[in-house]
């Protein structure tokens, strides 16, 4: 079955430290890949997306993500975390040729310590 896995439910980092949030998917073909962020009490905001081409994509708020086909992964990174990055992060995948419905991971909650 197709699935998206975010193996870390919570991640805690210190402000200024680097961050990597993991996302793995199980699909037969390369899907379209997305990362969303949700601040407390808010809706989800698109951080970045990958369709094809350069496997390192840049997003908003200083985030980037790297698509690794061999590992079926699309991990989100930021070199230096700010306290305002504390939020819930969701990975999502959508398979070309399929329905309009993406599959979301369960989310990773990022806690930032001062």
């Amino acid at each position: 079955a197709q699935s998206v896995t975010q193996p870390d439910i919570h991640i805690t980092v210190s402000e200024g430290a680097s961050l990597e949030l993991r996302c793995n998917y199980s699909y037969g073909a390369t899907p379209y890949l997305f990362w969303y962020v949700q601040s407390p009490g808010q809706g989800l905001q698109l951080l970045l997306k990958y369709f094809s081409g350069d496997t390192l994509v840049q997003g908003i708020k200083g985030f980037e993500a790297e698509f690794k086909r061999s590992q079926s992964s699309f991990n989100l990174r930021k070199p230096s975390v700010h306290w305002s990055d504390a939020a819930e992060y969701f990975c999502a995948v959508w398979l070309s040729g399929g329905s309009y419905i993406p599959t979301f991971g369960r989310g990773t909650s990022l806690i930032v310590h001062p």
Partner: protein
Amino acid sequence: DVKVTQSSRYLVKRTGEKVFLECVQDMDHENMFWYRQDPGLGLRLIYFSYDVKMKEKGDIPEGYSVSREKKERFSLILESASTNQTSMYLCASWAERGYGYTFGSGTRLTVV
């Protein structure tokens, strides 16, 4: 930018009430969606719509219905609210295939 507006940020309703959650998008998108979000369960799709007057059940449609009379508006209806429908409800619209959702700010519904 696309804007998806949910009319209420917070709602408190009584058990048994009929509840309407409204969602409006301003970019002529054909595809609109309703999700609920609960801690530990992620996003779960309730209903979606590909076009006016069209609707499809998602993963958890029980206890809900929807209405799409105009392209820009997609309403979620709780026919008889129950306490287990206390949740965050998120509306989204979908521009082109693969271009991702635009979400509204969410409605936090409490049923007492």
